[in-house]
């Protein structure tokens, strides 16, 4: 019995996974009766995609990486039919997953996500059945509260407390909402769970519904995740088919149904009151709280909103006990956290580590260090609401409060590694550009303040920085933070404030010296041509609008610095990598 599992999460597909799957389909024939071809979600080892795992007799596992259609033939001939592992393509699964503890990702990359049978074989829906048939709602809430689970969307609010509040509210209708609007650029944890193990989220939602007394659940998923939406729909349908969703679950009085609502492209709809407005068909603009959604949420009814990762933890907690969850983590941050490790990292992908693991351990231990081999400069955590943590604080353990103390936030899990080739002023500008774009416009300080901060940063990156800019940025940042109604505005200044705090020298270089040490801000860079690489093709001469490049045909060309306007066009047209930034 051989199972061939092709990793077909969105990133696997982007890396060419469908062509690999097709090749297997073409080659496997009636003679390969003992072989089943399956698709699975993302195991998290994105840097080795396309991944194909061969599981024999349910035990012996071989993981192949960098698979391409032209490699499939050999796998089929040598391994599947010939019984010989193709060693040179094997990925050291154990080694790469060392240091990780997979609770949320327990099934990702292990099961066919559309198969409810495989989910149940691994213990799925047992927690729900136990909750509904053998526990009271109060006991379920106790278990979640005891575990120490805190909201994994970024705010870290104690989940048990939120459920208790929702349970206490009296109303004839209540809602469970799963916030699957993962909007942080660089974060794809929720997407991978939804694509790779959708039932874990549905089960978590149903358990929450039982706990607070809600009969209706809604998954609000961003429209930019079509595969996740498809898998969720399949999962809801298959759960309904076997009576794990719908009326009278396990012959009890508890009924729970789940619907999907697609987002329409608004980052701010990740904020809970904006999300609710969006479901109600309105513009996604947040409102004042109190009242909190647990009191008056969707259509005015008590609503409990949790993140995908939070729900995915719940069945595991009920199945293994609150104590098991508490056994890892720090004093105030229990359990694990999933991170989307990306940027200048050798082994990028999804990792799940116990709280308390240090940033250095994640970057160097699990991530394999930077691509260049040198030390990292900073790690960006928390997306546009977060901050850049410098290498000097790499020993910081992953823990809500300790990360917050650095000026960043835990966030939803995006962790972008930066090195010397990253300009920290440009990073601040990048994030502010994002939040400015996504600001709903309701609050004056957020709407106009972020625009002004962005203008200042753009001016600095273009070489027009003024000495008072740093103070103005800090002042504006503080005002925006204090005067904004929702988390978007309140945290929009964070990337600027943390880079000002830890990378002040880069700001000085830009403002005082008109230089970009990382050579990213083109306006502050000297362009030159490497005579060793230039073939004299003249493409750059034609591209240059400033007439700054000259040279004879087939001879090395030159750039006249006094005419160069630093637009970077020559850099994009050169086919020989001859244009240098100095």
């Amino acid at each position, binding site marked *: 019995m051989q199972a061939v599992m092709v990793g077909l999460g969105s990133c696997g597909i982007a*890396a060419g996974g469908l062509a690999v799957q097709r090749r297997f389909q073409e080659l496997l024939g009636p003679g390969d009766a003992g072989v089943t071809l399956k698709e699975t979600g993302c195991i998290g080892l994105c840097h080795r995609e396309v991944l194909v795992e061969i599981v024999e007799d349910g035990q012996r596992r071989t993981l192949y990486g960098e698979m391409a259609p032209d490699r499939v033939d050999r796998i089929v001939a040598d391994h599947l039919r010939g019984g010989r592992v193709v060693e040179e393509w094997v990925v050291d699964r154990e080694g790469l997953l060392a240091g990780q503890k997979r609770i949320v990702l327990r099934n990702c990359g292990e099961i066919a996500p559309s198969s409810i049978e495989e989910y149940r074989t691994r213990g799925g829906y047992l927690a729900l059945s136990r909750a509904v048939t053998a526990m009271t709602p109060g006991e379920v809430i106790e278990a979640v509260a005891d575990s120490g689970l805190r909201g994994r969307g970024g705010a870290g609010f104690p989940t048990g407390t939120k459920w208790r509040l929702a349970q206490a509210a009296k109303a004839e209708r209540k809602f469970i909402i799963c916030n699957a609007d993962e909007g942080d650029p660089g974060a*794809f944890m929720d997407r991978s769970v939804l694509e790779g193990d959708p039932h874990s989220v549905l089960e978590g939602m149903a358990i929450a519904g039982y706990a607070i007394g809600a009969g209706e659940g809604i998954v609000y998923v961003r429209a930019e995740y079509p595969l996740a939406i498809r898998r969720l729909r399949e999962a809801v349908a298959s759960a309904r088919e076997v009576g794990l969703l719908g009326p009278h679950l396990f012959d009890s009085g508890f009924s729970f149904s789940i619907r999907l609502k*697609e987002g329409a492209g608004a980052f701010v709809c990740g904020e809970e009151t904006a999300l609710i407005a969006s479901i109600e*068909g309105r513009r996604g603009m947040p409102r004042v709280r109190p009242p909190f959604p647990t009191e008056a949420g969707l259509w005015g009814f008590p609503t409990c909103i949790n993140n995908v990762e939070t729900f995915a933890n719940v069945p595991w907690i009920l199945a293994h006990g609150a104590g098991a969850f508490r056994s890892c983590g720090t004093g105030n941050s229990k359990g694990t956290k999933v991170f989307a490790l990306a940027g200048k990292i050798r082994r990028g992908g999804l990792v799940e580590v116990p709280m308390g693991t240090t940033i250095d351990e994640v970057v160097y231990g699990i991530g394999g260090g930077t691509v260049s081999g040198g030390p990292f400069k900073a790690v960006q955590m928390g997306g546009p609401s977060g901050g850049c943590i410098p290498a000097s604080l790499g020993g910081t353990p992953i823990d809500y409060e300790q990360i917050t103390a650095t000026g960043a936030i835990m966030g939803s899990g995006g962790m972008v590694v930066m090195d010397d080739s990253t300009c920290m002023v440009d*990073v601040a500008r990048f994030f502010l550009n994002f939040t400015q774009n996504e600001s709903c416009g309701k609050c004056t300080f957020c709407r106009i303040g972020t625009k002004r901060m962005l203008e200042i940063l753009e001016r600095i990156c273009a070489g027009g920085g003024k000495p008072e800019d740093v103070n103005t940025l800090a002042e504006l940042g503080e005002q925006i933070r204090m005067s904004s109604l929702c988390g978007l505005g309140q945290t929009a200044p964070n990337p600027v404030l943390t880079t000002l705090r830890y990378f002040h020298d880069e700001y000085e270089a830009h403002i005082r010296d008109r230089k970009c040490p990382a050579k990213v801000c083109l306006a502050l860079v000297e362009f030159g041509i490497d005579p060793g690489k230039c073939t004299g093709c003249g493409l750059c001469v034609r591209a240059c609008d400033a007439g700054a490049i000259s040279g004879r045909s087939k001879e090395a060309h030159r750039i006249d610095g006094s005419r160069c306007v630093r637009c970077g066009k020559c850099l994009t047209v050169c086919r020989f990598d001859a244009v240098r930034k100095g």
Partner: protein
Amino acid sequence: METNGEHANGVVMSAFGRMLWRHGGEPGMLIPLLQAAQDSCGYIPPMAIEQIAMATGVPAAEVYGVITFYKQFRLRPLGRHVIRACKGTACHVQGAEMICRTLEEELGIRQGETSEDGLFTFLEVACLGCCSLAPVVMIGEQAYGRLTPQGLRRILRSFRRKPGGDA
């Protein structure tokens, strides 16, 4: 009237029409209706706004307000191939800026615009979630990762070469 919803009073209905007919009066249907209209027509034509306003009771001006709030909704048709350039953090750090400049140059348009020949629409999007392959561009449903300006040019050429502009 047929019960399968395909024909109502002899008029053939699309998925959008069906949703309008069956669910138009329910609360919270505005965004799903807008999404269905866009799926049917490729964008939201003025006629659809009127129909939705009538079915939901939401004034057309308010419908317009919802449309312009969300990035997904378009009031103008797209080109044949939609190019989505990822401007997420990981892609930014790995050179997305260069990729976007290359697109601007090759297509002669800025982000949000459609090329003169109607072949390409160029959109910058926040994050496609394929961070390990940064920088990433999606053309239609296909993602292209680890891009360089040269590689991107090659891909665009292959789209232009096929008759009818299909790659």
